[in-house]
């Protein structure tokens, strides 16, 4: 019983960290229509930045400044957001397909750096001994997981609240206007590129935060966490939950992560060891099938885009 509770808490913490990434992608895609296929890259930046800043000094590796966890979180957001702003400034002037190609390439490049720049990232073995939030409770898994759940749940709730406020703000209204008719928005004095860059940077900062939160929950990161499978999962979560809807983003994250975990456990139980690596590909296929089925039944996802109206205009 207690084991199940511990596992449920563990599952929810992980699902919520994916939920945070989804909220970031929803700012970019759902709200702004920016096609970011390098989600994993921005999560990785956040994870590595925070890890480098907060781990104790390690021989043969740069970083290890032993700074507090909250500082790592903030730095993760700032660096991921700044990287996205830079990429955005270069590519968003061009058309949408350039952004897709660029983000795809950058995510691969980031993963390769993580893999090869050993003095910075620890190479293929990654970085361990990342200080865990509530690390003092580690030997009591239930308490530890519940404490983390309370914290990650709070972070998610705050973020949700902040983003909902933004969706209904004049800022969000400009994004909708640009999406509906860019020429009209320009003629009304809106600097469409600037707003797109802001949305891209904000979304990526949130992804960076999620990377850091994950890193400090697990206590260990490695390059293989940040491959395009992650990007695929997050996209599936957002589309299934309902792009353009923050609650949809969170719901999709919990459902898809649930599906992923259940199928993972089943494969581990029923597939002989030597085939397991190959069987893992089945998980991706399964999510793909679920995605396709849902898109036939509910093209807008489970919750669908919400009708937005500025929060001062209700009633």
């Amino acid at each position, binding site marked *: 019983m207690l084991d199940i509770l511990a596992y449920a808490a563990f599952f929810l913490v992980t699902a919520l960290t994916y939920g945070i990434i989804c909220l970031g992608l929803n700012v970019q895609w759902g709200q702004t229509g920016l096609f970011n296929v390098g989600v994993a890259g921005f999560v990785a930046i956040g994870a590595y930045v925070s890890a480098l800043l907060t781990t104790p000094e390690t021989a043969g590796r740069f970083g290890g400044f032993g700074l507090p966890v909250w500082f790592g979180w903030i730095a993760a957001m700032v660096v991921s957001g700044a990287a996205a702003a830079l990429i955005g400034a270069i590519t968003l002037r061009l058309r949408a397909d350039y952004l897709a190609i660029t983000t795809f390439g950058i995510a691969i490049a980031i993963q390769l750096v993580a893999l090869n720049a050993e003095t910075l990232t620890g190479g293929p073995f990654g970085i361990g001994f990342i200080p865990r939030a509530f690390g003092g409770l580690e030997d009591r898994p239930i308490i530890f997981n519940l404490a983390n759940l309370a914290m990650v749940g709070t972070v998610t709730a705050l973020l949700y609240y902040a983003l909902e406020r933004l969706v209904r703000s*004049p800022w969000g209204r400009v994004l909708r206007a640009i999406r509906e008719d860019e020429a009209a*928005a*320009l003629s009304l004095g809106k600097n469409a590129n600037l707003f797109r860059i802001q949305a891209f940077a904000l979304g990526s900062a949130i992804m960076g935060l999620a990377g850091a939160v994950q890193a400090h929950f697990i206590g260990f990161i490695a390059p293989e966490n940040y491959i395009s499978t992650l990007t695929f999962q997050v996209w599936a979560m957002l589309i299934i939950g309902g792009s353009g809807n923050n609650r949809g983003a969170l719901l999709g994250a919990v459902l898809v992560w649930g599906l992923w975990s259940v199928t993972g456990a089943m494969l581990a139980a029923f597939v002989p060891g030597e085939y397991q690596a190959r069987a893992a590909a089945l998980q991706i296929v399964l999510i793909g099938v679920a995605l396709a089925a849902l898109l036939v039944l509910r093209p807008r996802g489970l919750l669908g885009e919400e009708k937005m109206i500025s929060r001062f205009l209700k009633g």
Partner: protein
Amino acid sequence: MLEVRSVSKRFGGAEVVSNVSLGVGQGAIAGLIGPNGAGKTTLFNLIAGSFAPSSGDILLEGAAITREAAHRRLKRGLGRTFQIPKPFAEMTLIENMLAAAQGQRGESLFANWLTPRRVAAEERANAEKAMAHLEFLGLARLAREPARVLSGGQRKLLELGRVLMADPRIILLDEPGAGVNPALLDTIIDRVIEINRRGITFLIIEHNMDLVARLCGHVFVLAAGRMLFEGAPSEVVRNPQVIDAYLGTGST
């Protein structure tokens, strides 16, 4: 107020606007007519900054704006509407109007988190202003409807309203009468005259010569990208070259 100096625009090989010059004085309502494909809308796009001219200069109140980005021009007082209206279709009328207000604190990301009260106050003030404009344009009862339900003429009015939200000094109207039912047409003409009385300058593209004669003191005639003629409406309708240009292409 607005001065266009020897402006040309080429798309690939075709020169769509050739060496056009025109001037619109402060407080005037000027007309721009010409057969379909004459380059009128292209000239508007050049003045509004949708793209830059191949050569020539555009001056607004004495300042060269030739290469300034489109989104900066409304802050300088230059507003425009589109031949085919571009309402934000899924947004309500009042939101369309609010989106057009200039210099909003609430459009900066952090202000919404750090100073929500000031954003709210600003939003209320803008909403009041928007409702007043919608009232003036006869759209107030549709304020909370999505813009997609509007008729062609109402869309033209909404576009005019959006521009008014920015307190412009000159407005470019691209065919405000096209596809508008006669009753609404009178409203549009009426409102343009009223806005002009408040000191706002207009440059209007229009085919309907009746409308042009009622509104415009001075008319420019564009044909095949060139300035063919300019003068009072009564001179324009009697000018053989102008009559030729219209009959020659078989259009209105």
